[in-house]
């Protein structure tokens, strides 16, 4: 038996927490999001009130302060994850960068669902030449590996936080268009759509009231997994030096900076990389769990 995730949030949560893997993922994601909201708000308020130090009130060290006396210190009681070449505390920098990765992944995935969902529903519902055109555009985007397309877009629209976000959205919506088109096609053939049409409901209302609620669950299950993919890709952009403008720390950029300290000072590159892995893994575990619930692979 399968359950509708959105209609039964409490039951869904219970099932997810019963499985150790998805429970682990859920805990890490919650920590990541809650921390990102707190730290992100502090940073925004700090910037607006011209007290940037508010951004590191909760952190063990100022993540931006250069201290060459403490350069490349190994992990210790004082610096749990060590320091980088500039003597900046790595733990503080990882925590300081969390809201960036969180906001990028959330904005990207939800924008992609909005754009791709609408186009996919229209393509699937109306069919004909509309479907052909949307389908070809989707194919054109999906024929190129995401990262390559991102590099092409970056060179056109430039690098930085907002530019990367726009480029990621452009690359990310087609998969949701394809996903929601397939769902819509399946839903369209059911009787309740026919009866809605017979009762005189317009296309727009049918799409919103009947198609959308029925197609969104599988899309959300995929999206959960996808937050991790966006974080991985954004970190790769950061690694290539085009995700965000320095000196703001970003996880991928930290790994790339640490690369120059290899092999001696391995912690400068490895710890930020591990954090990316753990967060991406958590999203994958919860996404897998949701998928299992949706297709009814779980007994409860």
């Amino acid at each position, binding site marked *: 038996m399968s359950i509708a995730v959105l209609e039964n949030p409490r039951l869904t949560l219970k099932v997810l927490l019963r499985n150790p893997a998805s429970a682990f993922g859920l805990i890490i994601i919650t920590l990541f999001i809650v921390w990102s909201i707190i730290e992100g708000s502090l940073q925004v308020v700090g910037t607006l009130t011209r007290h940037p130090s508010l951004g590191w009130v909760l952190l063990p060290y100022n993540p931006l302060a250069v201290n060459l006396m403490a350069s490349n210190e190994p992990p210790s009681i004082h610096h749990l994850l060590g320091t980088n070449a500039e003597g900046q505390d790595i733990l503080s920098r990882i925590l300081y960068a969390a809201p960036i990765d969180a906001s990028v992944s959330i904005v990207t995935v939800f924008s992609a669902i909005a754009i791709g969902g609408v186009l996919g529903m229209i393509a699937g519902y109306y069919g004909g030449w509309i479907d052909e055109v949307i389908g070809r555009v989707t194919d054109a985007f999906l*024929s190129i590996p995401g990262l390559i397309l991102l590099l092409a877009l970056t*060179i056109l629209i430039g690098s930085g936080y907002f530019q990367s976000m726009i480029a990621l959205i452009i690359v990310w919506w087609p998969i949701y268009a394809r996903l929601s088109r397939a769902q819509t096609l399946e839903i369209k053939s059911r009787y309740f759509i026919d009866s809605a049409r017979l009762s005189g409901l317009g296309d727009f209302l049918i799409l919103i009231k009947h198609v959308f609620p029925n197609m969104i669950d599988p899309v959300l299950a995929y999206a959960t997994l996808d937050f991790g993919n966006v974080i991985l890709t954004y*970190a790769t952009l950061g690694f290539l030096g085009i995700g965000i403008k320095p000196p703001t720390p970003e996880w991928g950029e930290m790994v790339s900076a640490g690369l120059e300290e290899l092999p001696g000072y391995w912690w400068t590159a490895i710890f930020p990389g591990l954090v990316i892995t753990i967060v991406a893994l958590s999203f994958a575990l919860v996404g897998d769990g949701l998928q299992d619930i949706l297709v009814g692979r779980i007994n409860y």
Partner: protein
Amino acid sequence: MSSVAVYIVRRIINMIITLLFLIAIVFTLIHLLAPSPYALARIWVGARATPQALQAVIKAYGLDKPLYVQFINYIVDVFTGNFGIDTMFKKPVLAVIKVYLPYTLQLVLTGTIIALIIGVFTGAIAGAKKDTATDYTIRIIYLVTWSMPPFLVAILLQLLIAYDLGLLPATGVVNPIYTPPKPITGWPLLDAALEHDWPYFTSMLRHLILPATSLALVSFGLITRLMRNTMIDVMNRDYIRTAVMKGLPNRSVIYKHAMRNALIPIITIAVLAFATSIAGAVVIEDIFQYHGMGWFTTQALFNLDYPTILGFTFIVGISIMVANLVADLLYAVVDPRIRLE
């Protein structure tokens, strides 16, 4: 015409239409960002060009012509492989790509093959022993490697195997003390083998192992997961039950009967693994200083070398469309029950 020929022709027409849409998208983006002929010219020759050079480019490329003329020109350019002049080497983009692409292809193909081997075996074992400790271990391993950023995998391998153990070289394509063989096929590894230049061949192979393994570690999870799922499906079929009841040993049932049938869908996913690896190569070539197309792309990115990046994007797009077509045809050859439509 036979049905296969009709199918191929239809797929190729579809591919061309998709490619036209891709060109339209890139064209629109370029023109949105560079609305004037001067801004356009800067895209093609670089931001530091002199006004005279910009004038010359506007003339040569017809950048002051009406939009539809420019669009048609652009389509003709892409279809004839004219992607402009690389702003770093001042050579045609296609010539530059021809130099670097074979290195990347030999890396990506090796990586995909390693990924296929690891993926097929781990997936088959996990599927045949569903819900056992072996199954869970394999699933955890592929979920973790899957969630790792490609650069972390590469750095870990480089640290452990190249720096710590000193087993393999950490960076480079080949030991620079060897002179490269004369190009026969344009594929360096193949050329070295054809000319019996074994020291060069071995050195290149040794430099290939770490980056190729990194690529494989990133993408094998895709294959493992699909293989596991189809294997579970196949293990429930009647002919497997018959094989077990005939008294065949477990090993023979799994590897001879089940695995062969579960292999069919792998053909399609192999293209996806290949595509993932091309993207992964950009980062991994950067870390291993492996001078292929991926490494060159990062250089082009820092130098705002538009023609090369756009040219490479088109070439990757076209090759993946072709690879998908080949995969679908192979699929029909391997499994005659599948009809091409």
